Structure formats: structure tokens, C-alpha cells
């Protein structure tokens, strides 16, 4: 049922069109140009911050082997709770510091992202204004001459 199915005409046409355009563009555009992209990558920064947040506080999930049953399991669980409480007490200030730093980084990140978005919007506006200006430069004199005549 999942075997490779014969392709239909519509699909074949689609592939042929894409192939023709790709070959044309490859010949026309050639090798990759250099890039000037901003290096700030918000999704990656956000993802890393989330991972860091998950590890910022001493973890309560100390695994207990499923082989342990009955009294032994109860004892292990109690010892585990004790260790976790102790760990959290000893690392409370460190955890607070970790979370504060991460929060500050997230806020900074959001601000940088917002600035980047505004910068991109301004770039677009400047580009559009330049296009309009050059359009006016090309067409205004002719129209002015025509109106004058």
C-alpha cells in the first residue's frame, strides 16, 4: 500500500517546470554572493534560553530504578526527597541568580529583536523612498514639460 506510486501528469509537469526554472536561475545567477545578514538569531537564542532555564534550578527528578520495590523503594524515595530539599536549600541563591540572569538576557534579547525589526522596517521605508525618488526623477521633468506645453 505504501509502495512508490506512479506519478500523475500534473506532478510530472510541476517537476519539469521547477527543473527548467532551476536550471535557468543557476545559469543566470551563478555562485552564491557574499552575505551581510545580521548574525542575531532570535529563535536560536530563545531556544538556548529555554534549555538554560530548564537547568537553572536544582532538579527534583532524581530517577529511582524500577527494580526497587516495597520498603526499599519507600526508603529510597524518602532519601531522595531529603537530598533534593538539601540541594535546593544549598543552591537557592545560585538558582535565584541563574533565573535573574536568564530573565535579564531574555528581556535584552527581546529588545534587540524589537530594534532589529524596527531597523528592517526603516530599511524597507528608505528603500521604497529611494525607489519613489528615482521614479520621480525619471518622470517628473517629462510631465512638467508636457504640462507646460
Amino acid at each position: 500500500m505504501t509502495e512508490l506510486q506512479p506519478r500523475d501528469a500534473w506532478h510530472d509537469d510541476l517537476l519539469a517546470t521547477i527543473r527548467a526554472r532551476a536550471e535557468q536561475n543557476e545559469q543566470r545567477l551563478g555562485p552564491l554572493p557574499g552575505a551581510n545578514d545580521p548574525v542575531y538569531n532570535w529563535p536560536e537564542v530563545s531556544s538556548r534560553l529555554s534549555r538554560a532555564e530548564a537547568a537553572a534550578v536544582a532538579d527534583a527528578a532524581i530517577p529511582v530504578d524500577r527494580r526497587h520495590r516495597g520498603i526499599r523503594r519507600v526508603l529510597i524515595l524518602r532519601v531522595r526527597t531529603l537530598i533534593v530539599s538539601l540541594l535546593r536549600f544549598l543552591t537557592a541563591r545560585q538558582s535565584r541568580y541563574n533565573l535573574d540572569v536568564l530573565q535579564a538576557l531574555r528581556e535584552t534579547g527581546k529588545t534587540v529583536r524589537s530594534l532589529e525589526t524596527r531597523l528592517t522596517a526603516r530599511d524597507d521605508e528608505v528603500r521604497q523612498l529611494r525607489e519613489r525618488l528615482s521614479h520621480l526623477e525619471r518622470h517628473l521633468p517629462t510631465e512638467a514639460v508636457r504640462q507646460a506645453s
Partner: protein
Amino acid sequence: MTTIAIVAPALAPGDAVGNDLLHMAQLFRGRGHAVGLFATHVGAVTAPCHPIARARAFLGSNPSAVLLYHHSIECAAGIDLIQQVRCRRVVRYHNVTPAHFYDGMNEACAADCRQGREQVAALVQAQCDLYLSDSTYNQDELLALGVPPERCAVVPPFHLVERLESTAPDPAVVDACADGKTNLLFVGRLAPNKGHAALIDAFAVYHHHYDRRSRLLLVGKEDDRLESYAASLRERVRHNSVEGSVTFTAAPTDAVLKAYYASADVFVIASEHEGFCVPLVEAMALGVVVAGYGGTAISETLGSAGVLWDDRSAWLLAESVACLQREPSVYAELQERGRDHYREHFTNERIEERFLAALRGLFQSRDRKGAA
């Protein structure tokens, strides 16, 4: 009631083999069978799982019991078990990544894959009752090694797509990706057979020549053993001058994964070896159109519900993405095909039908044997 031992090299959450195995266990239990799970390496899963050494005692000397062994990588304990037991034996073949992908990158991984491949021959020699493959591509390998066709069946792997469909996307991820850029998505662990380098090359062509406001989201677990591979990919990103636009990230929860699918404009794939590729099913079900390179089981899983190329040309892949972005009618047609293909072949309900049909012969012959 039948005693069924389900055995695998590893049982980990979010892993395709693990999901397949856990669904099978649930299905058998729902039908009143006694099921035990056994694996060498066990991750943080809630289902009770025992070391493989205990599977033999679980099966006992009952000839009507069933051993269902999942093969995906080296597992000496699993092979020993399948050679020793006298009950019904079923091999679930997920394929093994060829070792050459790991050569020079991590010798331990390469050795695991090499041995895993060698063990496929041992599984064939064991003349098990049934060989279930994820795809025709996998089944062809077994047939080439001499498994009789009447003992083979193709059953796609069970998955968590339905759970993913009903999960709300993580708002932080959706927000991070919703800035008007075109999002190209690939989901798969950071492993050398997944073709990340080819994806980065194709993305660079797309980014520089077609759409400067685009990004590539590479979602998948990073393996500590493959640090050099991850470093080489990041270097490739720099080399292609797309460092601001390629994101390496993991999806630790369903909500995060769903958010990446929800944000994706196109799912891109350049894997060089796939035994099935569950993310393609996820993409089809969630309405994200796929473009990429075909080969191995990819073309079979996707059918004609996307744009796949046999020749690995970055320009072809870039133009495919551009076409999907430029022509909404083409996108809508392929999206609809994807959803139809998923509903027709890959819902868990469909897979259950195929799985139970494949096992029917095995259970019937057992009943006859029992009656005799």
C-alpha cells in the same frame, strides 16, 4: 491470552522505534495479552521495561508465546535471545544506518551500525516466523538476504501524530518564528545520514538568491558523541554566510515540536538514508508541504504528496521551495495530497489494521498447532 515479549536495543521517549514499540504493547494489552517490554538501554519512559536477559524467563517454555524483536542497531542480547527461544518469533525491521556515515566521525557509532547490519544476516538465518518491515525499502533488503516473501509484510511504524495534532503549540516558539520570515523546517536528530549539510547548502541558495527574509529551522536532538558533526555543520553555516538564519534547536516537548510545524512554511529533507521517516508523516498530517531529495524510503513514504528529486541539486531544492511559496494553488494541491495520503495509509488506525492482518496468520497457525 498470549504471552508476548517485545524486545528492542533501546527504549527512549520521542524515538520512532520507542513509539512503535509502546503502541504495539498498548494494542496487545488492550486485546487481553500478557505483554512484557525488554531493552538494553532505557530512557525516561513511564512504561515498565526490563533488561533483555529477563525476557527468556518471561516467555518460559511456552511454544505459543511470541517474541517480537525490533532491530534498528547492534543488539547482541536480542540476537542471542531470538536464536535461543522456541516460541513464535517476529522480527520488526526498522533498518540500520550504514556505518560509513559515521566513519571518521565516531568510531563507536560506526561499530554499532556495522555490527547491527551484520546482525540482520543472523536474523535472516534464524528463520523467524514473520518479518515486519517499516517500508518496502526495508523489506527489499530482507528479501535480498533470502527471507521468503510469504514471511514478509510491510507495516509502517506506529507514531504520535494524533497526540501532536491535539497538542497546542508552544506560544514562545510560535512568537519567535512569527516575524514574517519564510520558515523552512527539518525535523530529525543531528546525525550524519540526515543530510544536514546538503540542506544548509540548498538553503544558502534559497536565502541568497530567492528570499533574504527566510530561515532554516533544524530541529533535532544533538548527540554528545557527534560533536564534530555538529561543529562541521555550524562551520558550513558560516561558510555559506547564513549564520543569522539557521537555527539548531531541540524539541523537548510535543508543544514545542507542534509550534515548529505550525510555524513552518515548507518541510525540507535531504536525508541520505531513511528506513521510513516519521517526520514526513507528521508534516503531511499537519499540512506542511515537503520538498527535498528522494531515495531510500523517503519517496515511498511521501508518494506524490510533495516535491522530491533524485539528483541532489541545491538549485532544484531552492527552486522547489520558491515555487511552493510563489504558487499557493500548487501548495494547496500538495497539502491536500499529503493529508489524503496520511489518512489513507498512515493513521494509527490504518497501521493497526495492517499490523493485525500481518499477525493473523501467525496467531491462526499457533491456534492450529495448539488444537493439534
